[in-house]
């Protein structure tokens, strides 16, 4: 730790960062490296890594971007659980030792950088976009597709996924089965199958209900526990199973895609909008 850091009164404690290092260009085996990091109030694990890079070791690599739990880039295995480094404050870990490793179940590119290409490939395989029979309307839209508030609630939770990959890292089935689709892609599949505007179940079920699909999930729940956005992939997978069960017995709802609403014409603003209240403070120019 440098001298100025030790004299800073805002430092509440010093923690030991134990970071896994791996250099693909060398022949060295991966190893854990220790760093002493001064912690100030509100400091996240990502801030700690930034501090290490700035003050102690510029060769340390990881992936991050937004630093506010939106982009999903900084997924890491922190103190025994997959977490977003930017979303977890060091003091909330309640430990003087912070162990940071790359996300399990992904190949390591370098240090804390996982190779997420496999995740994105599986994500693409479930066709995560609206599929409709009226392709002409999709290409040249004449209006909006109708959807009620209730229909929105059927899938909106699953649309919050930021593709950070923590769920795949926590899933015990993904740990042993490389071909298993995994919680993220299956959730993405259900997000669109549950969408009232979509008609793409037929095209997706080859992946969703394959031998490496939903039936490999035995509800360990780790995916939902670690999801930083409350997406609940375990719920989406069970709903996929339920839907398949109901359809196989002919109980499922016959799905007809939401109709196209007539275009809004001759609309003029201000019809029922009340007038703004009178100004109480005069403008400088007046």
């Amino acid at each position, binding site marked *: 730790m440098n001298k100025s850091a030790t004299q800073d009164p805002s430092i509440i404690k010093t923690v030991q960062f134990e970071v896994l290092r*791996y250099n*693909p*260009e060398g022949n060295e085996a*991966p190893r854990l490296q220790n760093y002493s990091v001064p912690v100030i109030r509100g400091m996240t694990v990502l801030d700690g890594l930034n501090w290490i890079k700035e003050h102690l070791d510029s060769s340390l690599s990881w992936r991050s971007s937004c630093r506010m739990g939106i982009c999903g880039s900084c997924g890491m295995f922190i*103190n*025994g*659980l997959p977490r977003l480094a930017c979303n977890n404050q060091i003091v909330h870990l309640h430990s003087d030792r912070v162990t940071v490793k*790359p*996300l*399990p*179940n*992904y*190949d*390591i*590119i*370098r240090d804390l950088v*996982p*190779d997420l290409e496999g995740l994105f490939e599986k994500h693409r395989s479930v066709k995560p976009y609206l599929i409709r029979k009226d392709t002409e309307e999709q290409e040249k839209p004449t209006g909006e597709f109708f959807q009620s508030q209730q229909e929105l*609630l*059927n*899938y*909106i*939770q*699953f649309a*919050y996924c930021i593709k950070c990959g923590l769920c795949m890292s*926590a899933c*015990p*089935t*993904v*740990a*042993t089965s*490389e071909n298993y689709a995994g919680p993220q892609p299956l959730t993405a599949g259900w997000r669109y199958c*549950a969408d009232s505007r979509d008609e793409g179940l037929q095209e997706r079920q080859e992946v969703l209900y394959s031998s490496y699909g939903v039936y490999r999930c*035995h*509800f*360990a*729940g*780790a995916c*939902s*526990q670690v*999801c930083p*956005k*409350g*997406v*609940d992939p*375990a*719920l*989406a997978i*069970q*709903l996929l*199973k*339920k839907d398949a*069960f109901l359809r196989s017995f002919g109980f499922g709802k016959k799905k007809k895609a939401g109709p196209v609403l007539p275009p809004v014409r001759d609309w003029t603003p201000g019809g029922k909008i009340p007038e703004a209240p009178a100004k109480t403070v005069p403008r400088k120019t007046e």
Partner: protein
Amino acid sequence: MQQRLKNRLGIMGWLGGGRYGMDRYAYALHRITGLGILAYFIMHIIVTGQRTGGVERWESTMAFFGSTPFKIGEFLVVLAFAFHAVNGLRLIFVELGWWIGKPGTPSFPYTYSTLRHRPLFIVFMVVAAVLMIIGGVDFYFVLK
């Protein structure tokens, strides 16, 4: 392309529950007990197949498997069966979408399906424990 380091957890990934919830441990135990029951089933078929070799062979086989270590082994099968059957029933309920809640708009602090399901999980585990105790009492008197 640069060399990638394999980091798949493998068998320890599903065997080790780590800092995850109790559902994760139930997942591992369900698979372990399933494999145990399968091993017992194969052994059971081989053992009962000895009956075709005549009465003497059958009786000597039974005498061999009637010893205390095998009785304890059988009791472990009862424990495995009690857990696997009850937990399997719970998983069927889950797959039908019962007691796991409905999707909604997530708001922090997040709740999720395994948490909503927790009361039922505990009820099922209590039922499994009761079956195990009944099996234990039965085996205690058999061993006596």
